[in-house]
């Protein structure tokens, strides 16, 4: 798609300062094939060939605003990256931004005739459960984590995307379900977890985790410009490691707590308002959630340069 048009790609991003936005934006700015880059976000960003639109995706009338900006000239690829990665400013806001924001963005994309939409997701949407198979394929049910608003919202976004794919076959849609993205610069719940001086874990459990290096995640997102392939893909590093190894590789130490104590402590801290981490998230420290990256490897010829091990080690620094 991009090749024949030479340097005339028009690309749009929502959330240029989000987790993936921050990872991707510098590369997009340096990309010679891009003729114009539209950005939509609350905080200003600047660069050559960049047009920023200050929008708030949680506003009810944002859709027409987006549509107007997107339909000025046909957009080839829209990266919808406006998802929370920092500490939440409240569950209601998170829900508005992620679920309703996606709703607005997708609707505007359809009306403005965007050719292809790319949305990052997470392998956490499968949920960490006792009943998980050895490897979770892309078709596995999205159980999510019912006790956690964060994961539940992402599952809801996934459902919207599935409906969108069904209702609008004319618009390309790529969903990348990333394993926790680790790297020296990226900032997300996983990197914050692994950057603690003592990382709480559950005594007697050491679930299997995967990770993907930020370079590989960026590489894959950029590759959409070469010729987008619709579909949903798990994006995982090559190897599987126990949580405690990732913690060690990240240069810190595990603090194993007996599970009942961990849950009780977390509940106490939450009700005291010190933390806002739902206890249900401890499932991810309890059960394995290993996604099968075969489809991305075969369909997209995606070969991550770094494995889970290197990704974990890159958090250190």
């Amino acid at each position: 798609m991009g090749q024949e048009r030479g340097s005339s790609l028009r690309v749009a991003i929502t959330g240029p300062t989000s987790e993936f936005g921050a990872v991707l934006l510098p590369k997009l700015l340096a990309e010679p094939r891009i003729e114009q880059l539209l950005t939509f976000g609350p905080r200003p960003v600047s660069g050559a060939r960049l047009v920023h639109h200050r929008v708030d995706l949680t506003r009810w009338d944002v859709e027409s605003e987006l549509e107007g900006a997107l339909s000025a000239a046909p957009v080839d690829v829209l990266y919808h990256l406006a998802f929370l990665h920092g500490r939440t400013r409240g569950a209601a806001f998170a829900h508005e931004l992620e679920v309703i924001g996606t709703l607005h963005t997708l609707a505007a994309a359809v009306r403005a005739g965007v050719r292809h939409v790319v949305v990052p997701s997470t392998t956490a949407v499968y949920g960490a459960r006792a009943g998980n198979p050895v490897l979770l394929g892309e078709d596995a049910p999205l159980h999510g984590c019912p006790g956690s608003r964060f994961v539940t919202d992402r599952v809801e976004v996934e459902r919207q995307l599935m409906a969108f794919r069904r209702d609008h076959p004319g618009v390309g849609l790529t969903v990348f379900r990333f394993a926790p993205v680790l790297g020296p610069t990226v900032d997300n719940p996983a990197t914050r977890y692994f950057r603690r001086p003592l990382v709480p874990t559950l005594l007697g459990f050491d679930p299997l985790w995967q990770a993907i290096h930020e370079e590989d995640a960026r590489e894959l997102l950029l590759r959409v410009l070469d010729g987008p392939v619709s579909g949903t893909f798990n994006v995982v590093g090559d190897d599987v490691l126990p949580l405690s190894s990732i913690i060690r590789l990240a240069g810190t130490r595990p603090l194993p707590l007996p599970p009942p104590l961990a849950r009780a402590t977390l509940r106490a801290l939450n009700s005291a308002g010190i933390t806002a981490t739902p206890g249900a998230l401890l499932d991810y420290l309890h059960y394995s959630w290993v996604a099968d990256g075969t489809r991305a490897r075969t369909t997209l010829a995606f070969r991550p340069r770094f494995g889970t091990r290197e990704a974990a080690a890159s958090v250190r620094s």
Partner: protein
Amino acid sequence: MGSRRVLGNDPFQRGAAERTPATSPASDVPEQPSAASPRGTGASTERNAGSAAKRPTPSRRPAARPRKSPPRAEPSPAPGPVPASGAPAVAAAPPPPAPPAPPPLEPGAPTLTWTPAEAPPRELDRAAEGTEAAVTPATASLFEVLREAPGVLAEAWSALEAALRAIRAGLGTAGGEQLDVYGRDARLSEAVAPLLDFLYSRWFRVEVEGASHVPAGGALLVANHAGALPLDGPMLHEALRRERPELPEARWLAEDQVFYAPLLGTLFNRLGAVRASPDSATRLLAEGRPVLIFPEGIQGIGKPFRDRYRLQRFGRGGFVKLALRTRRPILPVAIMGAEETLPLLGKLPGGLLGVPYLPVTPLGPLPLPAKWRIRIGEPIAVPPGATETDLSVVESLVDATRNTIEHMLRALLGARGGVFLG
């Protein structure tokens, strides 16, 4: 593999002659050349030869016990007459492995077989050599014990170290960087090997019959399940590793209650347990692995001691459906000894630890040194054309498997001299 079963490694010809028939399945014989020749096998042969040779002396017990060992070995050829179901071939031709086996009393030969043991016993070895021919069998056994003592102690020590390592892995702080997608940690398995070795060849003195029945290309080994902590999975796994090193490494399926038990579940997973589910089993079989299945599940390990060796319901026949779907044979396996190893005397509520119950056993998590025998029966072929939706076929295959295991268990129990002596 027959070659290392050779109890002729026992420097005492007497013991060797008596025991060989009991333990070396004749059906293994044809395997011998093929199994012994390929690369890599040499090492394991030697290693196992060592353990087999040491086997007759159970742990570091006073002389009194081993002294009994010759008489006790005699009844054991009796298992020969138990062709009950699957194992007639087993008893058929015991002698073949024997000829190369008993490397008689030439002073040099036994030393060779002793090499795997720790250094100190070697000198003792030679010292004993001269005398032994002259002394009475009973005194000879005493010598045997004394001579082995340092080696056994060293072994027990490294087993203890390995146990600590295992506990650390179970606690979930040890890490490990060489895991496959199922969660098995090759390096940890190596580190824990001394413990498994000790349990397998010293503590339980596991004897395996019919290992040659396991075909290449994947099979379902269906066994009875017992012991408050299910050690039968790792032991059967270890048995296949030793007896059939040429096969892809086996995996055992663990019920959720064990797989997600704190410490134990984590440790088992790192050693090769896979959560029991049709998709994991299918994946394992597609890799050509033997898959070890305990269809009784938690009912098997949760039954009180008075119900020992009473087979529970075989789940819902999932293993048969799996066999029908993957067209792989079912091998019935009877395991004797696991029941007495960790007898379940009672159950304490375990909600706080996230387990269905806390088992009460005589020595806590420490296993009793019951003698183990594992008999692997002949494959039960899957009828051609049958599908997993054919419930009557499923049911009859479940029954056939269950009955075969039952028969083999009865035969093993009938031939058993004593719980601890075997």
